[in-house]
Structures are given as C-alpha cells and as structure tokens.
C-alpha cells in the first residue's frame, strides 16, 4: 500500500516547531464548495497509509 511520504500533499514539519516528531508531516489539501476555496491541514506520518486523495510525486 502507498504511504503518505509518497504524496505531493505531504510536507514535513520543521524540527524547531513545537509539534515536531520524526517522520511527522502536514497533509495539506485544497477543497472547494459553493462558498469558495479553502485549504485543510492535518497531521500524518510518512508511514501513514495514504488516503484516496493520494497524489504521487513524479520527481
């Protein structure tokens, strides 16, 4: 199964931040509904099983 670390929406947390943990990152996704666009961020780990929004990095 693909993991979050392969996803373009995975952004590692900088070491100096309060919620830093090794391999932890922000999963950031854009959403849009009738009221407009917004961006969501939730914590995931590199090893977290990827969700249906997985977007694999090409490079």
């Amino acid at each position, binding site marked *: 199964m693909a993991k979050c670390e392969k996803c373009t929406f995975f*952004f590692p*947390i*900088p070491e100096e*931040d*309060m*919620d830093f943990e090794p391999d932890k990152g*922000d999963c*950031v996704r*854009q959403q849009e509904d009738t*009221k*407009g*666009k*917004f*961006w*969501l*961020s*939730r*914590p995931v780990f590199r090893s977290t099983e990827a969700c249906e929004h997985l977007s694999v990095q090409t490079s």
Partner: protein
Amino acid sequence: MPTVATPSTERTARLKNRCRFKHVAGGEYVHAGVKAGVERARLITESHKKNIGNPNCIIRARGLANILDNITIHIQDDELIVGANTEHPDYFPMYPELSYFATVDMVESHYCDHQEEMREISEYWRPYTIQTKAEKYFTPEELGIMYSATIVQPPMFVTAFSSIVPTYEAVLEDGLIKRIEDVEQKIADANASLRESPWNAQDKLGLLDKIDQWEAMVIAMKAVVGWAQRHARLAKIMAENFLADPKRKEELLEISDICRNVPAYPARGLKDAMQSKWFTYLLCHSVERYSSGYGQKEDKMLWPYYKKSVLDQTDQVMTYADAVELFECERLKVSEHGSTKGRQLREFFAGSNDLFILTLGGTNADGTDGSNECTNAILEAAANIVTTEPSIGFRWNENGNVETKKKVFECIKKGFGFPSIKNDEMNTQQLVKYFNVPLDVARDWALVLCMSPGITGRRGTQKTRSEGGSDVYPAKVMEIALTNGFDEFFSNVQLGPETGDGANFKSFDEVWNAVKAQIRSAIELSLRSKDVGRIMELTHLCCPFISAIDDGCVEKGMDANALAEVANPWHNIIGGSVVVIDSMTAIKKLVFEDKKYTMAELMDALRNNWEGKEEMRLDFWNAPKFGNDDPYADELATKYYDLIADEWKRNTTYSGTYPLPLAQSVAGYIVNGPKTAATANGRHAGEALDDGGSSPYMGCDKNGPTAVLKSVSKIDASKHKGVLLNQRLSTVLMNSDAGFDLWHAYMKTWHSLGIDHVQFNVISQEDMKAAQIEPEKYTDTLVRIAGYSAKFIDLARYSQDTIIARTEQDMAG
C-alpha cells in the same frame, strides 16, 4: 427601504457574500450545510482514555494539547485573520465532557454525520460529565423543576452554557513564550522550596497542587504555540504550492509570519494583535471549553497596536482604511464562527449565532475619554459590513466626544439595534461600590455578555457563568404564586412552595407575599445550582490555558474556575418583569381597591384564558400600565425592582458576596410566552412576554418616549447589574437632517435621568411587513431582539410579530 451593506473593499464584499453564517432560529441552525464536527470530541476522548488517573488539570491540559496537535486546521480564500474551532468551515464543535443531554441532543440530530461514533463517545463520557457529577446533589424533584425551564434556567451543568472575558492583554503584551518561562520558573522554585530545611508540611504541601496546575499551564501554552505554528506552516505551504496570485501569496506569507510571532511573542502591530486576539478568543471560548460572549474593551485593548500601525507607522504599517477592512474581516470571522449552545440557549437567541458582544467608549483608566480613532474604525466597519455579530455595547459618558457618538448614531440609524448603550458613570461606580474594584481598573470595564459589566485586563476577569449569569423567569413565578406553586398550564409539576390558591387571597399583601416567596425559592434553587456547578467546574473541568493567561492564576497556581479574584456575581431576571408589574397593578386596583372583581373571579378567568370574559380582560388590559409616567403603576414597579434586588442580596455565592439582578430578556420573552398561562395584565395564555427588563409591554406605552424614560428612571438602577430598555424610534426622524440632534437630545435626557441602559430598533412597520412577504429583498435587515441583534428574515413569524408590535416612538413629539 432595506438596509444594504457597503463593504469597504472588494475582499470584504467577497467574504460577506460567501460568509458561512451559523444563525439559529427556534433552536435550529438556519443555513443548510451547518454540521456538527466530530474531531474535537474524538481527540479529547482519545486523550482522556490515556490520561485517566492523572490530576484533572493534567488530564485537561493533555486533552487540549491532543486537540491542538491533531485537529484539522483550515484557511479560507481571502482571509486575513485565520483559525477556527473545527475541522471544516461549516462545522461547530461538540463537548461531550460537559452535558450528557446536550451531547445526545446534538448526536441524535440531523447535524451529526457520525452518529455511531458519537453515541459511543457520549456514553463513554456520561459518568464523567459535569451533568452527572452535579445531579447527585439535587433531588429528582429539584432537577425536574430546573430542567422544565419554567421558573429558572436549567443549570449550566445541563445546558453547558458559560461565558468568559479572556485576559487578552496578557497574551498580547507578554506572548506565551515568556509566560511559559515564568511558569517553569515557578515550578522550579516550588520544587526547591519543597526541599528546604526544615520540613514544614503546613507551608509546603499546598505546593503539590500548585505544581500540577503550573505543569498543566505549560502543557497548554506549548500546545497553543504549536497550533499557531501549524497555521503558519499551512499559510506558507499554500503560498508556495497552491496559489498563483502574487498578491495573495504575499498576504499568505505575511499571515505565516504573523502566526509564527503570535501568540508566542508580544504583538508588534495591529495585524499581530488582531490575530493573537482571535487565537485567544478561539481557545478560551471554544476549544478548551465552550463559553459564549465576546467580552473585551476592544478599542482600549487594541489602541497601542493601532497607534503603532496606523498613526505612528512604526510596525505593520497600514492606513485607517486598512484598519477598517481588518475590522470588517473580524466581524465576518465572528459571523461564521460555529458556537455550540445547548438547545435552550439556541432557542433563547433566536436569529443569532451567539452572544458576541464587544464594548467601546467610556473612559480610560485615568478618566479621560476612552473613545479614540480605533473606536471610530471599529464602528465604521460595523456600519459598512452589516452583520448581526459581534454586537457592540457603547459606554455613554457625558464627556465622550461627539464625533464618536455620531458614529454610534450612524449604526443605530441604519437599524442594526447596536450599539446598545450603557450608562458609563453609573456602571463604573457600581463596580467600585459593590465589588470593591479600584477606580482605575473599574474604568476599563466591558460587557461580559449582553449588558453585564465586568473588568478587563490581565487578571481577575470573569471566567465562568457560574460567577455571573443564569436566569429566573418572573412571569411564570407570578403565575405559580397564584396556583399554590403548581404549574397547571405547561408542565404539571410542583414548581415552588405551596403559597395558596390565588382565589382565596383576601388582600394585596397576600398576593405580594406569595410572589415574594416564589421568587425567593426560585432564586435560591438557581444560585445553588450555579455554585454546585462551580465546584464541578473547578474539580472536573479545569481550564489550564485560560488559567495560564491570567496573572492571578499564574501567581497563585490556581485554576481559573477556582480563583474568584474579583467577585462579579449577577443573575438575570428574564422577560416578564413588566408583565408582573402590570398584573400586580391591575390586581391591586381592580380587585382590592375598586373591588370590581374578586380574586376567585380573576383566577377563574386566568385558568380559562379569559374565555367568555372579554369585557373583564379589557378592564385588566386597560388598567394603569408601566411606561406612561403614571405614578400608580410606577410605584409598584419601583417596589418590584427593589424586592428583586433585596431578594438576591440575601444570598452569598461562591465568590463571597451577593449577586446583583439583571433585568433583561434576550428571546426569552418569546420562548417563555407559550409556557406562561394568561396573566392579570390582560395578556392571553401563550402570548409573548415583555421584551426587555423594563420595556413597557407591547402597545401599552401610550404617552411618548419621555414618559417611558421617566417611568424607567424611577427604578433604582444602582441596585441592579443592568435594566434593559428597548425603544423603537421613527425611521423618518432618525434619517432626517435633525436626526442626530434629536437623538442626541434624547440621549442627554436619558443620561440625566440616571437610567442604566437603552437600545433601539429603527425600522419601519412597512419594511418589516414587506420583509415578511419578500424576504429575499431584506437579507441585510437587522433588528434588535433584546440584548442582541438578528436578521429579521431569520426569525419565525411569531418572533417577527413581536418586533412589529413594539411602539414606534416619535422623538419630536
């Protein structure tokens, strides 16, 4: 003509257009799409299971940290102020640790999409909720009385309703990093003290609880800094990965910088201050626990930052227009904030989101005019954007500048119903006289909720509604005073002591004494439930973040629920005071003086809702009424308000003093109408009650606005925390060239008569009736209910009719 918003920028026009309003009507959210978020409940439950067995403050701190570390955060397009309390902009959060009933009510509603999971969560919490913990101290009969919401508001441990004035200044001035260092030093000092020789248990053992409290504060503050950093990262990631517009990218990078700086460090300018204030608001009112309100002296609090950014142009430089835009953004952010009131409170705030009320004007700590250019910018933003929230309370001081008073007038003239106006000198003096607040501190007061002043600043502010708040419902109290304490009309419950059947009363004194006995019983039950709730809060519902930002709590190592550094007890008497006064007046005159009817005849008529007794009803309807400068009715009113104050004064609450009553109504005058039988003022069963704390009954004030003011001025308002007066003014006059001068003269009369409060509706009968027919043309039409404003079209017809029914006063008359 309908009022139309004129947002000052294209951004705020877009934000207004797409605002995700979360108003309620009849206890239900008006807009489709509003949902119950599950993440907060899920995360606090997960943490509770792991930490059970630890001191409550540590459990609560780790619960908060688990939420802040893991909840989905979001930023919407165009936003300048970021952060929310749930995982999605259409959601409101749930609080399974508070009230079991309130949680179940929400879980079983159509707002909850995760019913199976939430049922499990609510059952898990059931034994730990403050509802379960508190109920054991009351008999089933007492719970039945309180939960019927007839003579008293159900207690906070079942409604889950609270209110708070956060100590914003401590966050804006210090930043959390410095406060973390200070608290860590206290822990180190305490540990060193515990090891001093010789050992003295009496001196030292108290440190153990303090160490727990301080450790909890550190956990909470670190989590908050991390949560702000999550927003900083999101804004930067959006700028660098998702957006092409260079202007928006630049804005997002600035937002990222701001969220890195605050609330971790002191605010540098107005942008930092607004963001830091918003984060603090979310945490204190919505994330750590739910509390209503938007209590703050905003112009005073923001003035140093406004001055830096707008006037001195030394940091986060901006123009006056930029500041207005930022305040418009704040209003929209508040408008789409999802609050999670229990059902009774949702019903009581018909047409609104929550009681978001900020305070402006008054004086500075040194007694000089407290209104400044920041005050004007806030008022201008309100006039432009046209939202019901946040409402504004304006402290009317004789020495306040006329320019600001003109801005106040502009908002009122547009029909917003706010600013509502409080007598500044009277309310400042009351804090000094009754609550021993030093004058310079008292001068910084703000409204805690609709109209109850409390101090602001770095310490000693109100932290919970078990300090001030909750209700007694006087019209129902009078009803049962005539029916031996038994509710024959609505609940079939013995609600109060057996004070006899009104049919057998032989003197007016017997009527009066029965009412007094019922009021006493209701007050004592209500106050006891608040103070029991307070103990449950400080034992089971510690608030480490709220404590961490209060200098007093940090100094003493105490939870904010426990520390009552500045007592501020008050208690509402909601909707119905004037029904009681008018009813007593009619009984006194028609039964005991004119002897036209007997009490037996009256009780028969009331029990049968005046059926077949229309002539008799009209006699009672046409008896002297409060609000006409009629000494006969006004004398009884004075006696009634004194009785209320004296009855509360008999009691001592948690914080060591007696509460002051506060006569007002919110939408309780609507909701409690159907629970109240026919009354001796000629009112039918199920008809709405009076719409304020001293507002004449609908249609009963016939002698013009000055007569109303004179009647109200006979109440000794200094004995009350507030006495709400609604007035409806002519749109034609208010919009005429002489509008401001007429209104200003009216306000000077109001002030000179020593009246506590006034708020206005300025909307024509024709517009309201037209809005009922074509609501889509009146989307920005606001009206004042009582203590808050609402979109007229969001109200149910029954509620709309009570606004139309108010007497339109002609100030020129």
